[in-house]
């Protein structure tokens, strides 16, 4: 499927293609051309990331020396199990969003701006993939800002003028988050003298307990916390998701916060390692309290939302609580649950936003009281909403159940019974807020406003149902989400050992063009497996 000579360069392709396409889309400024570019590039990214995940799971980490400069001197693109998992998730969500996009977007954005929207989407995609793939701490910041700036523009293109205020507030908070992240990296760079994450991890192990390094970690956790909307830092999220165009809401809800979670995992587990973050620092207690608060309070707030998109956004905040809960448990079961929930929640929430997007496309309403009887007018769309809603609650047989099961296992393992109760209570709250929509949509007579409502066009329905089917598929065949998440959790818990490092070049090798050729691939036995102990 992919030409042989391309294979070593797949990691670079993930960034270069979307960025180039974004530039072309911005220059052409034509909606149709922009959409075609975005569609083709997004779908191309899927086999590319699948191929990389396959290679990683077969054995070994892919390390790509960008520009031929070998790490740790040059920027390294590094794909291991967690990174590969996330690349597949982001590219698949991008491909589905672009399949869904043309008519839905055309109803929400004026003609002249459509090409620019696709350009922004492609930039955002490049940034998100870049954050997942890069092994360089400062490069992460650059990609973070590339994706964030594009997101601000995408959100501001919403029809409602509230979208502008939401985008501005997100810009302020997002920039503060990114700047906190750079401050943290500055501390780590000053302490270790390197920016390559593997190299940094090894040098931090030699450094031992270092106050500047811990201060750096604190800045990084808060900075990333702002980006991933960890509970008290979530205030930008509800409005940003509620008033952006439907396609943007679904794409951002399923990818942007997930990539931020991935970064948090990288810094806590790979760069610092479990010994330092969980044994020397009270990170478990800190994250447990915030996660539990997110799961209960954000769910409770979601119940009182009249705008369905805003309700889904608050539900996102509470679901992020589940993911950070898995991180806080820092055990194989807990982390597997957290990473699996990252994947499952992306599918479920995208499906819900796409279903509501279909309603917006047909009827232009998102207020709960205007949706009375919509299930009878658009049974297929709202049917998908019900299935994904069940997944959100965590009904057995759906994807949401698998990850919640792992989380409960992880909490029970450590004797945290109160936490098990919190997980159940939060799920019951989800029953209420999902149930409200289902009750209004199916058990009330359709009002006059919905008289002309009918099922949306084929591509919108197909994407929504593909995700609804995914909700059930990953709930039954757990080896695909739970299994890969388990592999990723194992890699993260193992941390970084000396065998992960690329050997530093001597001075003669550095100036020898034959040594620093395009890429370096490490073999299977050296990395990834269980032998990289501390």
């Amino acid at each position, binding site marked *: 499927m992919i030409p042989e000579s391309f294979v070593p360069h797949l990691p670079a392709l993930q960034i270069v293609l979307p960025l180039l396409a974004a530039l072309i889309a911005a220059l052409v400024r034509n909606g149709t051309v922009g959409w075609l570019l975005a569609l083709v590039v997004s779908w191309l990214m899927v086999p590319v990331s699948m191929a990389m995940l396959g290679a990683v799971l077969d054995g070994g980490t892919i390390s790509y020396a960008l520009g031929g400069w070998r790490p740790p001197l040059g920027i390294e693109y590094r794909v291991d199990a967690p990174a590969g998992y996330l690349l597949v998730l982001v590219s698949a969500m991008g491909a589905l969003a672009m399949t869904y996009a043309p008519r839905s977007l055309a109803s929400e954005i004026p003609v002249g701006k459509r090409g620019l929207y696709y350009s922004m989407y492609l930039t955002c995609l490049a940034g998100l993939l870049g954050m997942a793939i890069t092994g360089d701490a*400062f490069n992460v*910041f*650059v990609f973070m*800002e590339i994706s964030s*700036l594009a997101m*601000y*523009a995408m959100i*501001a293109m919403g029809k409602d*003028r*509230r979208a*502008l*205020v939401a*985008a*501005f507030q997100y*810009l*302020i908070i997002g*920039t*503060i988050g*990114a*700047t906190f992240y*750079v*401050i943290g990296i*500055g501390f780590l*760079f*000053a302490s270790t*003298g390197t*920016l390559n994450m593997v190299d940094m991890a090894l040098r931090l192990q030699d450094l031992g307990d270092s106050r500047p390094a811990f201060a750096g970690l604190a800045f990084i956790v808060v900075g990333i916390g702002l980006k991933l909307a960890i509970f008290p830092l979530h205030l930008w999220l509800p409005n940003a998701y509620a008033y952006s165009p439907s396609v943007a809401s679904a794409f951002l809800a399923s990818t942007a916060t997930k990539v931020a979670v991935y970064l948090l995992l990288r810094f806590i587990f790979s760069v610092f390692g479990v010994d330092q973050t969980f044994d020397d620092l009270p990170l478990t207690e800190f994250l447990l309290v915030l996660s539990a608060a997110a799961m209960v309070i954000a769910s409770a707030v979601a119940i009182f939302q009249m705008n369905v998109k805003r309700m889904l956004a608050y539900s996102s905040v509470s679901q992020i609580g589940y993911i950070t809960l898995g991180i806080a448990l820092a055990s194989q079961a807990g982390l597997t649950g957290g990473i699996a929930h990252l994947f499952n929640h992306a599918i479920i929430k995208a499906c819900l936003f796409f279903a509501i997007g279909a309603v917006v496309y047909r009827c232009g309403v998102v207020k709960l009281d205007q949706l009375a009887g919509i299930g009878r007018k658009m049974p297929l769309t709202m049917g998908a909403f019900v299935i994904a809603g069940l997944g959100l609650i965590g009904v057995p047989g759906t994807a949401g159940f698998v990850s919640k099961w792992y989380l409960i296992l992880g909490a029970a393992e450590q004797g945290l019974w109160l936490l098990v109760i919190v997980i159940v209570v939060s799920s019951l709250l989800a029953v209420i807020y999902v149930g409200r929509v289902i009750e209004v949509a199916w058990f009330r007579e359709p009002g006059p406003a919905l008289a002309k409502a009918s099922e949306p066009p084929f591509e919108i329905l197909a994407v929504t149902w593909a995700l609804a089917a995914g909700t059930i598929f990953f709930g039954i065949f757990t080896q695909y989400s739970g299994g890969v998440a388990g592999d990723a959790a194992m890699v993260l818990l193992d941390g970084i050992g000396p065998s992960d490092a690329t050997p530093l070049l001597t001075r003669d090798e550095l100036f020898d063009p034959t040594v620093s050729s395009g890429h370096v691939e490490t073999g299977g036995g050296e990395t990834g497996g269980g032998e990289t102990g501390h």
Partner: protein
Amino acid sequence: MEILDQITRHYNYVITIFLMIAGVYIVVAKSNMIKTLIGLSIFQASVYLLYLSPGKIIGGTPPIIGEGYEVYSNPLPHVLILTAIVVGVATLAVGLALVVRIHEAFGSIEEDEVLRELEHE
């Protein structure tokens, strides 16, 4: 006196911390969106100093391999901050563009006035 000595010897960090806190304070305290963006820029500028000042070694030279070049300063912080400055300018540009659009839509750039108007809708 030791504290005073510490402060005078590390005056570059004192300036950095002052700018950092001043920037965040403006972002939090001011309702005018342009002022918020100014605060954000000051906050970002403080980070430039945080990187640049440890990057310079007194008596250090550019990293050139050759006679007479013994102690050298790491050039990497400068390159990083060049990138960060570009990012900062881009952020400011997007922020100002949003303020222009908000002014068109609401007729005000005071955040509390805009939010009050939205409440009445």
